[in-house]
C-alpha cells in the first residue's frame, strides 16, 4: 500500500491547512499521480483539485508532487514516490482557494502585462503575414508554454516579488513575441521591461527549467531579453 499525504484546506471549515494521509493500492501499476487523486476523490469526495485534459496539454493540474512542481496527469508514480510515500501539495507561493486549488490571479496579471498577442499595425496582407522557416524556428521552445504556472511558482524571485517580477512563464511568453518577426512592437515591449524588477530579478537559479513539464527553458529566454535590453540601453 502506498502512503499518500495530501494538503487539505477548506477555509469555510478549517482554521488552518493540514496534511491528510491516505492508503492507496496501486495494484502494482505505475499509474499517474492524477489517477491517484481521482481514485482518492471517490473515497473522499470533498477533496478538490483542478484537472481537465489529463494528457499534459491544458496545464490545469499543476501541483507540488513530493517537493517538485509538475503536472499530476503526466507524472508517473515511479518518478514521484519517495520511500513508499507520495506527498501532494498545491503549487507554492500563491494563495490557496481550497485543497490543491490555488488563486492564479497574480500569475495571470503578470502574463497580461507582457501583452501576449501579436502587435503589428501595418496593413494586413491579403492572405497572411509570412515568415521564413528560419524566422519561424525562433519560436520553437517558446510557443509551447501551456501556462501551468509550475515554473513561476517554483521561482523564489516570483514568491518574493509577485507584483513586480514578471516570472519565468510570463518572460518566456514576452520573448516569444520579441522573437517573432511579424511583431513590430519590440521597442515598446522592451521599454515596459526595463525596470530593475520585471526581468532583472531573475538571478538565474533555473528552478523554472528544472520543473517545466514541457521541457522548456525560461532562463534562456530571460537571458535573450536581458541581452536585448542591454543592447537597447547602450
Amino acid at each position: 500500500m502506498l502512503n499518500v499525504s495530501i494538503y487539505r484546506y477548506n477555509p469555510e471549515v478549517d482554521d488552518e491547512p493540514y496534511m491528510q494521509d491516505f492508503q492507496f493500492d496501486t495494484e502494482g501499476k505505475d499509474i499517474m499521480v492524477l489517477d491517484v487523486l481521482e481514485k482518492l476523490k471517490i473515497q473522499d469526495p470533498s477533496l478538490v483539485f483542478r484537472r481537465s485534459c489529463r494528457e499534459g496539454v491544458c496545464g490545469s493540474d499543476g501541483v507540488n508532487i513530493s517537493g517538485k512542481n509538475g503536472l499530476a496527469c503526466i507524472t508517473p508514480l515511479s518518478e514521484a514516490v519517495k520511500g513508499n510515500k507520495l506527498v501532494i501539495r498545491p503549487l507554492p507561493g500563491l494563495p490557496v482557494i481550497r485543497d490543491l486549488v490555488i488563486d492564479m490571479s497574480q500569475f495571470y496579471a503578470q502574463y497580461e502585462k507582457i501583452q501576449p498577442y501579436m502587435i503589428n499595425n501595418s496593413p494586413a496582407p491579403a492572405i497572411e503575414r509570412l515568415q521564413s522557416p528560419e524566422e519561424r524556428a525562433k519560436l520553437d521552445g517558446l510557443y509551447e508554454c501551456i501556462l501551468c504556472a509550475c515554473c513561476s511558482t517554483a521561482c523564489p524571485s516570483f514568491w518574493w516579488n509577485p507584483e513586480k517580477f514578471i516570472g519565468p512563464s510570463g518572460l518566456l511568453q514576452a520573448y516569444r513575441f520579441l522573437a517573432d518577426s511579424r511583431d513590430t512592437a519590440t521597442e515598446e515591449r522592451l521599454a515596459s521591461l526595463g525596470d530593475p524588477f520585471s526581468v532583472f530579478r531573475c538571478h538565474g537559479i533555473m528552478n523554472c527549467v528544472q520543473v517545466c513539464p514541457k521541457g522548456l527553458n525560461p532562463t534562456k529566454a530571460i537571458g535573450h531579453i536581458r541581452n536585448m535590453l542591454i543592447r537597447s540601453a547602450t
Partner: protein
Amino acid sequence: MMALLARFARTGPSDWIIQRVTAVVMMAYLFFIVGYLIANPALTYGQWSDLNSLLSMRIFTLFTIMAVAFHAWIGMWSVLTDYITVRLMGPKANGLRKGLQVGLGFIILFYLAWTIKILWGL
C-alpha cells in the same frame, strides 16, 4: 526637477552593467595586489609606501573603492528588496528596509571618505 531625477533613475540594464563593470574593476585590483605580493615576497614598508604614493596607484585604489561602493549598494538594495518586504514581514518591513538602506548608505560613504583620507592623508 522630476525630469532631472528621472535621468538618474536606475534601470534594470544600468544596474546590471554597473554590477559587471565594478566586478571587473575589483577583480583587476585583487589580481594586481595579489600579483604584487607574490612578486615581492620580502616586501618592506618602504616599498609598500612607495607603491601607494604613486598617483596612478591612488587613483586605481580610489576607483576600486568606488566600485565596491556601487557594487555593494546595488547588491544590498537587491537583497533587501527581496527579503525585507511587506509580503514576507508585514507592514513594519518598509520602515525597516529604508532604515537599513540609510545605514548601508552611511557605511558606504564612511568607507569612501576613510579611503580618501588614507590615500591622500587629508
